[in-house]
């Protein structure tokens, strides 16, 4: 009489082993995800919005960790335990459905997806990671400093309506102050992406796309166009600066002086512009 266990008992043994290994791998990976990988997730913690995005990315990672561990453990277990011996040519056992396993898998993934849907919706509506942005912001933080981002082929320029509508080629913002970026375009579709600020807003002609951010520390941040916009799209980048309130006051005063004459030539401040000429005159 053979000492081999019955197929059902053998399957159960494999299932228990895989479940245990998955649980152990998840317990090891989760602290690493939460305390090591999570805090280093993009885009960093330069602003309240960016910090919120880091939190969202960490939650996504936490949710996907058990599933990832299960898939990796299953793969490793299969390659190790079910590996055929050299020269062995045997047909595998017929594969049949396993109702309980299927229900468990469907239940686990459904719970994960539903949780992410509820979490994502709540985060979208919250003031931070996406709420209060777009052409019609849901939430409007009070006391925000408006800064208009004007995209054109192929450069961003910036207008400060509360400082006489002066326009500049550099973007500077004060630290610890809510900024309302009003993003628009004079020609093609661009996208204003201030990476470390956690701000990415499409720049569309005739659209005032609003995004809020409050910088937590001074320093520089990268600005890029994130929408393919023509020949020099790859060169449409810039470096912005977050400075102290005093430095900002001094800088904006300098800009007002430097561009006093050309400011008179600018159209009155508006959330969008439709400038002539739309085609070459000459």
């Amino acid at each position, binding site marked *: 009489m053979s000492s081999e266990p019955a197929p059902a008992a053998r399957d159960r043994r494999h299932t228990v082993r895989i479940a245990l290994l998955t649980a152990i791998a998840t317990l090891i990976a989760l602290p690493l995800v939460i305390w090591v990988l999570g805090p280093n997730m993009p885009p960093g913690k330069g602003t309240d919005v960016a910090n919120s995005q880091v939190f969202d990315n960490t939650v996504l990672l936490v949710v996907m960790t058990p599933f990832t561990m299960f898939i990796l453990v299953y793969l490793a277990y299969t390659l190790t335990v079910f590996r055929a011996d050299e020269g062995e040519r045997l047909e595998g056992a017929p594969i049949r459905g396993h109702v309980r396993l299927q229900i468990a898998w469907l239940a686990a993934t459904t719970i994960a997806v539903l949780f992410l849907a509820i979490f994502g919706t709540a985060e979208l509506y919250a003031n931070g990671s996406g709420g209060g942005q777009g052409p019609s912001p849901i939430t409007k933080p009070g006391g925000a400093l408006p800064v208009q981002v004007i995209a054109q082929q192929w450069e961003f320029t910036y207008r400060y309506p509360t400082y006489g509508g002066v326009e500049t080629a550099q973007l500077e913002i004060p630290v610890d102050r809510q900024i309302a970026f009003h993003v628009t375009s004079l020609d093609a579709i661009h996208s204003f992406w201030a990476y470390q600020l956690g701000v990415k807003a499409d720049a569309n002609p005739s659209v005032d796309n609003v995004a809020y951010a409050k910088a937590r520390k001074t320093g520089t941040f990268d600005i890029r166009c994130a929408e393919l916009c023509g020949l020099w799209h790859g060169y449409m980048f810039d470096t912005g600066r977050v400075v102290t309130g005093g430095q900002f006051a001094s800088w904006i005063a300098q800009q007002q002086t430097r561009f006093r004459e050309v400011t008179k*030539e600018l159209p009155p401040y508006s959330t969008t512009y439709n400038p002539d*000429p739309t*085609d*070459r005159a000459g």
Partner: protein
Amino acid sequence: MSDTGRRGIVLAVLVLVSAALIAFYVVRLMSGPTPFQPAVANAAGRPTVSLTLQTVAAVGPSLSPNPSWVSYLIREQGVWHRTTVWTLPAHALVHVTVYQYDGNSGLRNPFLSQARGIVGGTFTVDGKAMSRIAPDDASHTFAIPQLGVIVPLQGVADDAKNQCDYAPCSLSNAHRTITFTFRTGKKGKYRWQCFVPCAAGFVYGFGGPMQTIGYMDGFINVV
């Protein structure tokens, strides 16, 4: 030869041909047009170069397969070339003279009508020092955004006599003479462009020559 051997040879040939085509494309992409390299002088220990450019409403059949396209040209040993990729020394003073033969188009963003990033903050138009022009008078701009350089180029009057039809234009044609100086800064590859929507016949004036290196855009290789 066996079927397997024949298949192997066919596969090897196909792989080699594909690799050769990819290599040809990459080499062509990397090499680009031959850059223009002006003579370099030294003034007070600093490299100094002079560029002489002209901007024309229509580049003409002798210089381009797109004769009606607007374009920059550069003069090399007395001959005008349609070359917009230039090699310049690092930390050099670059004296630029532009003979501007085109009419006004106007800027979409009036802010760009003020010069920035040039030595002294001013440029000259027909000998007159200026720091900006009326936005509607702009025919083109010379701009190197990464270096913060922009100079608006004033157009010739609509009713000017003896206007140039096709490049290369001569100094007897109606034109503006614009001069300015900028510094190249550190080594790198910088793009330059025109900001005026000056491409006739294209949507928003930003197609064709505004999207093609060799006309209204180019590179400056600072070495």
